[in-house]
């Protein structure tokens, strides 16, 4: 018995050692794309489609001959939504795996905790998280593909303004996404002549928000805006319908997926949100340059994974394509060359929007890239 435990302990120690040191063996040939995503944990509905997208397109690009004649090698670690883990994996990517470029950071917290390290290692880093602080002020090596949460707030408030709404109730989750979105909304509301009369929150794993919604309803608002992601907004939507609140209802881009419609069911009828065109590929105007890209991505993703496409996966798609473009333009994986190529990409037509990057703008999207959609008969409809 005791011998067995000894042997087991020895085996464990050997595995531990092997795991840490084995990865330091260098192979010079492939282009190394590093990635840390929240593939599990509370933010997995961001990280999971992002990872699937990266995996399938790296495969596809390699099948098509790679980039600059070299194969791509994806090195991915799952940070489970934990910022400290993300930082450690970023450390591993730049210091141990010595990757050429990093695509990742599903949430603002994981991105921001990894950013200082990656900056220092002078490795190009394309984040897939939303908050405005990632690229403002500009950090030389940090880029991002999603629109900022401020843009989402601006689009929603703009749409409210056009409907003549001036008094709004806000409900957001206390996680990173909702909390940052809430701050942005409160900051820009005045620009649209809108007053936030109620400002409520709920925990990311709460199961009932009727109390908060009752409070908002009693505040005398004309519309309600929910900033959050995950199952929370679906519950808010259901509670909203259940309470019979008959006011215009808005969600953020955080729920822009068909999954949300399934969860919220008929309660979602009539609500609006800002989203990438990915949800309504066929309603796009034929002249719209994004139409083909969007249709393609949706078809390929759904065929490969047999599950519905999500906006978040598209961030990874755009990130990968931008990275590939930059490496091709730089003609090598020289980090400074790739970085400078990245910040000069103009007119890249992606799934999320059309990117025009510059040394001053490391995201390159405008608020217009968000489309306003409305749910009608259980389907997404393009409004604007």
């Amino acid at each position, binding site marked *: 018995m005791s011998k067995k435990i000894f042997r087991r302990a020895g085996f464990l120690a050997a595995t531990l050692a092997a795991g*840490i040191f084995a990865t330091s063996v260098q192979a010079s040939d492939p282009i190394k794309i590093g990635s840390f995503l929240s593939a599990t944990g509370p933010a997995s509905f961001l990280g999971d489609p992002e990872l699937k997208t990266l995996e399938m397109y790296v495969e596809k690009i390699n099948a098509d001959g790679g980039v600059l004649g070299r194969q791509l090698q994806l090195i991915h670690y799952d940070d489970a939504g934990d910022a400290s883990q993300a930082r*450690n994996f970023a*450390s591993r990517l730049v210091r141990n795996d010595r990757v050429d470029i990093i695509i990742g950071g599903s949430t603002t917290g994981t991105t921001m905790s990894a950013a200082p390290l990656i900056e220092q290692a002078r490795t190009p880093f394309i984040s897939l998280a939303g908050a405005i602080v990632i690229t403002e002020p500009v950090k030389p090596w940090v880029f991002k593909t999603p629109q900022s949460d401020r843009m989402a707030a601006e689009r929603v408030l703009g749409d409210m303004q056009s409907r003549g709404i001036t008094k709004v109730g806000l409900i957001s989750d*206390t996680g*990173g996404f909702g909390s940052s979105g809430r*701050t942005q909304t409160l900051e820009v509301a005045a620009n649209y002549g809108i007053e936030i009369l109620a400002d409520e929150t709920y925990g990311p794993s709460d199961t009932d928000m009727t109390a908060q919604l009752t409070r908002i309803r009693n505040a005398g608002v004309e519309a309600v805006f929910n900033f959050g992601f995950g199952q929370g907004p679906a519950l808010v939507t259901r509670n909203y319908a259940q309470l019979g609140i008959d006011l215009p209802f808005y969600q953020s881009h955080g729920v822009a997926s068909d999954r949300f419609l399934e969860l919220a069911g008929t309660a979602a009828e009539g609500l609006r949100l800002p989203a990438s065109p990915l949800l309504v590929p066929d309603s796009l105007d034929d002249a719209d340059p994004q139409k083909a890209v969007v249709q393609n991505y949706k078809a390929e993703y759904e065929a490969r994974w047999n599950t519905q496409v999500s906006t978040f996966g598209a961030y990874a798609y755009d990130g990968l394509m931008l990275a590939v473009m930059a490496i091709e333009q730089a003609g090598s994986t020289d980090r400074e060359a790739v970085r400078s190529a990245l910040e000069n990409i103009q007119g890249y037509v992606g799934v999320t929007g059309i990117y025009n990057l510059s040394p001053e703008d490391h995201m390159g999207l405008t608020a217009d890239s968000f489309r306003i959609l409305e749910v009608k008969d259980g389907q997404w409809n393009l409004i604007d």
Partner: protein
Amino acid sequence: MLNSLFQSRQFGLLVLALIIIVLPFGLQNDFHYDIAIQMGLIAATVVGLNLLVGFAGQISLGHAAFFGVGAYMSAILTGTYGWSPIPVLLFAAVVVGIIAFVVGRPILRLKGHYLSMATLAVGFIIYIIINNERRITGGPDGISVPSLSIFGAELNVFNDYQILGMTLSGTFLWYVLAGVLLLLAVWIAQNIIDSPIGRALRSVHGSEVAARVVGVDTARFKSLVFVISAVYASIMGSFYAHYTGFITPQIASFEHSIVLITMVVLGGMASTLGVILGVVVLKLLPQVLADFQELEMMMFGLILMLTMIFMPKGLLPTLQGLARKYLRKKPEEGV
């Protein structure tokens, strides 16, 4: 003979110092140093927690909150208000000590699971405050922390330093600092354990009523050790914040508290070197399991569960027990 060698205070400290000195020869790059530095800082925290959990037998499921308060006070006071890191670190330790004293007094009257519940509640309340007060703490997205400076000299992980004609990287200097901090933490912890105070603490675990009838004011000693372990956590939280340069409320969360106490139990309660081993294992495990992707969570749970079922006393005490059995066939005399 071997028994006394294992338990002699100098021996443990010596082994640890030796490991810290030899380890750099096995560390191949900055990532390895990075993990080692974090292990050092967390280990020092856990050595403090072990005084409370392992020696005095009081369970805390909210200890990460003290770590978090130290870290956040350092981040906010040095970052937002531009105070100097070391005074802030000491100030934070005092504040955390006071918080621990104030909450400790009433909740340490509780026993067993009720104490776990109360520490969990205190931890949660602190976490919620850090998470919600976005304007001060940066909220769930986190806050960046300036690098550590000692007497005006900045210690940045990313810089190189000329010391005695040698060029040393900031990372290496941090490694030295973390090593020194850990040795200091262990030295102090051992001094406490091996003293009348330590005896009183262990008697609280062994038999509280016996301790009381010989005159030990158990309430006072429980709150003393609660404060000591909270101060340990606060100081190491501050260093951790300066080292990583960015912190999020997760470091104050319930999950992190569970990780900390798991390190104690896994390594071996009431064994100072054991809990350090616990830190090493739990810090390495995610890096090793990272290659298993989808299976990671399942394997982590399984390893944790099996280790605790088959080694309920923890890794090091079990291994020591086995080693003793191998090396000395005769049973102990006088039994």
